[in-house]
Structures are given as structure tokens and as C-alpha cells.
């Protein structure tokens, strides 16, 4: 979607960024909680702590989406005066 419309509609990348960021933070923090909590549910390969690093990856990707979307929005605003 474009930000060039008269009402400056948010792009889809903005929403994707927030979605990944919010969900990533929740998964990452849950992973950290279970790292220190003894009552962790049993799953295969849980010793690799996939929730921590996968949540962190989602979080970083979400931030990148928001950063580049913001950059593009500013650029378009400058171009449109």
C-alpha cells in the first residue's frame, strides 16, 4: 500500500512490523520466564530454548519493518512537500 494518498494511509509493513514486534516480545519474555522457572512444560529440544531465540528474531524483524517503513514514509512526505 502506498502512503501517497491524500490521507496518508499507513502501509501494510507498518502493521506487519507491529504484529511481529508484539508477538515476538511475548514469546521472548515467556521463554525467559521459563528459563528461570522450574515448572516448564516438557517439549522435545526444549534445552535449545527455541522460544527465546525465535521470539528475539521476530522482535528484531518487527523493529526492522517499523524502521524502514518510517524511513520510507518520511521520504514520501518530503517528496510530496
Amino acid at each position, binding site marked *: 500500500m502506498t502512503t501517497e494518498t491524500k490521507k496518508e494511509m499507513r502501509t501494510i509493513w507498518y*502493521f506487519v512490523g507491529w504484529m*511481529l514486534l508484539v508477538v515476538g516480545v511475548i*514469546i521472548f519474555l*515467556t521463554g525467559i520466564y521459563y528459563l528461570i522457572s522450574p515448572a516448564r512444560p516438557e517439549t522435545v529440544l526444549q534445552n535449545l530454548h*527455541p*522460544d527465546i531465540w*525465535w521470539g528475539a528474531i521476530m522482535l528484531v524483524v518487527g523493529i526492522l519493518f517499523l524502521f524502514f517503513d518510517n524511513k520510507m514514509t518520511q521520504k514520501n512526505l518530503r517528496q510530496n512537500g
Partner: protein
Amino acid sequence: MEEIGLTFIDWLIILIYFVFVLGIGFYLKRYTENDEDFFLAGRKNSSWVAGLAFLSANLGALELLGMTGNTFKYGMYVAHFYWIGAIPAMLFLAIYMMPFYYSSRIKSIPGYLKLRFDEKTRVLNGIAFAFMTVLVSGINLYAMALVLHTFLGWNWDVSMWASAATVAVYVTLSGLMSAIFTEIIQFFLIWFGLFLVTVLGIVEIGSLQEIFNRIPEAYSSLWSTSTDPSENGMMVTWAGIVLGLGFVLSFGYWTTDFLVVQRAFSAKDLRSARMAPVIASFFKMALPFIVIIGGLIALVLSQDANSGFALLRDGDKINYDSALPMLIARYYPTGLVGLGVTALLAGFMAGQAGNISAFNTVWTYDIYHSVIKRDASSAHLLWMGRVATVGGILLSVVTAYWAKSMPTIMDYMQAIFSWVNAPLFATMLLGMFVRWITPNGAFWGLLAGMGSSFGMFLAVKFDWIDKSLITMSEVASDMAANFWRAWWAWLICFVLTIVISLFTKKRSEKELVGLVKGLTEETVGKPVPLMKKPEFWGIISLVILVVLNVYFW
């Protein structure tokens, strides 16, 4: 069976997804001012947005579960659906067909049939497509409730009505625009929610090579066992794959099914519209790394008695669709389970939204505006689009309850596509590339193609004829029969359209300018660098396709 347990955190992630999609619907409503905004998202999308939506409209959860289960059952042959069964058709659409579609400024595929042929061909296809879309949408809704009930223990009625109501709200508010937004969110949720299964599966087994070492050759090869159908799990020959799946079914779906093509129509210019399927082709080729590898991981684990992994059983029958949910339950801790379930839920709902946004467009433009109210204003069409959305959703719910009372309907999903899309591809191909094809030739050819496909289906189903008559082989699975039926329906439509056109009145060449190859000036836009040309990326995509096929031969 033991259900996958959800904790508060998992429910929170699911809730956040619902808040996002509903919020997007309300946010986008203020940008939906006329019928073009509602039905074609204002034609202002970039190639990336149109491309990801193009792919995501096809990427339903039913497909993810079904194809992972099919891989467990048939092995690597399922990858044909993602490679030869998709990529050539997507590239053909981008390079050769999109210029006619986009430049004629049509709003739907039946709209092209009206311009190229006549009103009756448009209405025939419009009705067939609307019927097929509601049927598929209802079956998807039923399948979603079945999955949620089986794996999570959710109530049938609540699951169906809650998801149908959510889709109805956001599609009614802003039409295709919100459908596309949610499809792209679904795309990322599916990759982040399900790709980790593959990663952890490979880590547990040791390596990708180890997975292939542990399965029989019939399951690990793409082509080397295709000369004799009894040697591969799908019981199909290379000819059935190439003609039925690779040519007719694939081209019929990817180049003429309005559900996916509508996303490319929403692009801001012709170059973006052509780039959309090319971009989608790269991600389509990557999907086997979730579904195919996931299915093979499930197969390897189930063969290892020490792994403790097994698919669910419904009585004596193995529930193949349980492969992906069982892997999620095996590897995902709290939080990630919520993400995996949300990915499946998003896949179901985005698929529902895709079907409904295509249905409301075809109903409004090709049936209502074309037959019932020809003088409707833009504001009236916008209103009708919203009414059609609610009506379409209600019809889907009714269909879902019907499917629930007759579960075998699920087995006929592939067959439905061969009734409508396979003959339509013959009509489109001839219409776009042969100038002397006539309106009567197209109409009667299409009708005969659809009728013959349905007739063959009934004849085999009720044993009026032997299946081998269609599949030309004593050994053939239902999947192989689908491939061959699509091929024959296409051929019947193709030949009849030509023969009838030889004896019926042609349209003047003046009327066909812009619609037929040879009568259309090549669109020369402003020169773009090589790296921005659809043809360049199309060739890269083809090279990757060839490499994948040779590597997994």
C-alpha cells in the same frame, strides 16, 4: 485423543491477532470511498504487496495441513504442486497474459470474457465461479472448525461463527484492501509460526540429508520413479503430472482463477502487476521447506519406535492431516504454540476473506451489474459489494453445516477446480492468442468442457465407466484421476471451441484491439533497468525451478 493444551499466553497471542485484523478493517474503512477501492483496493499496490497477496490468497491452512499430510502419504511427489504445478503457470501469467488483463482495465476474469466474447460467456463463468467460491469457502470453514475441534477441543459452532463473523466485519468494512492486508499478515505468521517446525525437525534428526537417507526412494524422489505408476506413492506417471497438473490444472488455476488474479489486478501499474506473480513464484518454490520437509520429518519420526511420535488415528484410518499439528505439539513450548495455532487460524481466515472478496466482486460486477441492474452507480455497487460480502459469508456458513453432515465432500475439493478452471483455461488461451475464435465457439466449448469434467467425475464415482479409461493406466490414485480428468476437460473445450468457431460468426478485428495477441500494440512503458524487468526475474525463477527438479530428481 489428547488435545493441544493452550495456556493464557497462547490465548493472548490469538487475541492479539483478532484485535489486529479487526482494527485494520476499521482503520481502512475511511480509505474505501468507491467501488474501485472496495473491489480492487484502489489499484495502488506495489508489486511486493500484490505479489505476497497473490501467493497468500492460495496459502490456506487447509493446504498447509493437507499438503504436509499428503507428503507423509505420497512423499516428495507432493512438491510437484509447488514447483512444476505452479511456477510455469505463474510466469506465463506474468509475462504473456497480464498485459491483456491489466491493459483492458477489467475488474474481473468474467469481465474479460465479456469484452473478448459476449455477455452469455461472462455470465456462465460468473455463475460457475460464484458457485465454486461459495462451495470452497464453506468447505474451508467446515475444515477449520474440524481442525480446531480435533486438535484444540474448541466448540464447532463457536469456531465457525466467530471466524465467519470476524471475516465478515473486516471485508464488509474495506473489501479487497483489508483482505490483502490480512493475507500479508498471514503470510508472515505462517513463516514465523511454522518454519520453526522444520528447523527443529532437522536439528532432531541430524541433517536434511539424514532425512532423505531414512526414507524409501519412492518417497524421496521427484521424477525417477515416474515412468511406472506402481513405483511411486501417488500412482501417477510423468505424463499425468506434466499434462494434468503441470499444464491444465496449474495454468487453469494460476492464470484464470479470479481469487488469485484479483490480487495482481490491484497493482498500481502494469509493471507491478506483471512483477506480482514473479515475486510470488520465489516464495511458492520455498514453501516445500515447510510443508514437504515437515511431512518427511513426520514420516521419519513415525518410523522410529524410540521417537514416541505417531499420527492420530480415526478408528483404523490414519489422520494424515494431523502431521503438522503433532509436530507443533512435539516441539513448541508455551507462546510458540499460540503462534503456531494463530498461523493456522490466520491461514483459514485469510483464505475465507480471499474467497469472499473474489465472490463479492464477481457477484456485483458480473451478475448483479451485468444482468440485474445495469445502471447502478458506483455508490450503489459499493453498497451491493458489502451486501454480497455478508450474503456470501452466510452462504458459506450454510455450506459448512452441509459439509459437516456430509464429510466426504472434503475429498472433492480438487475435483471442483477441474470442473471450472480446467476448461476455462482453454477458453482464455484461445481467446487471447487466436483472433478468429468466436463468441459462440467460446460459450459452447466452455459449457461442454465444464459438463464433460463433471460428467467424468460422476461416471467414475458411480462406476458407470472404469477409471482406467480416463487415466490410461490400470493403477491410479484419485489424485491421478483428477489430473487426467482436468486434461480431458481442457482438451474437449479446446477442440470444440475451435471447431464451433470455424462455423460461427466472428467479431470484427476492430472490436478485439487490446484483447488479443497480434491486434494489440506492445505496451512500451518508460525504459526500466534490467533488474526491474519481470522477464529477467522470470528467467531467474525458471532456473531455480530447473535446479530444484534436477537436485531432487
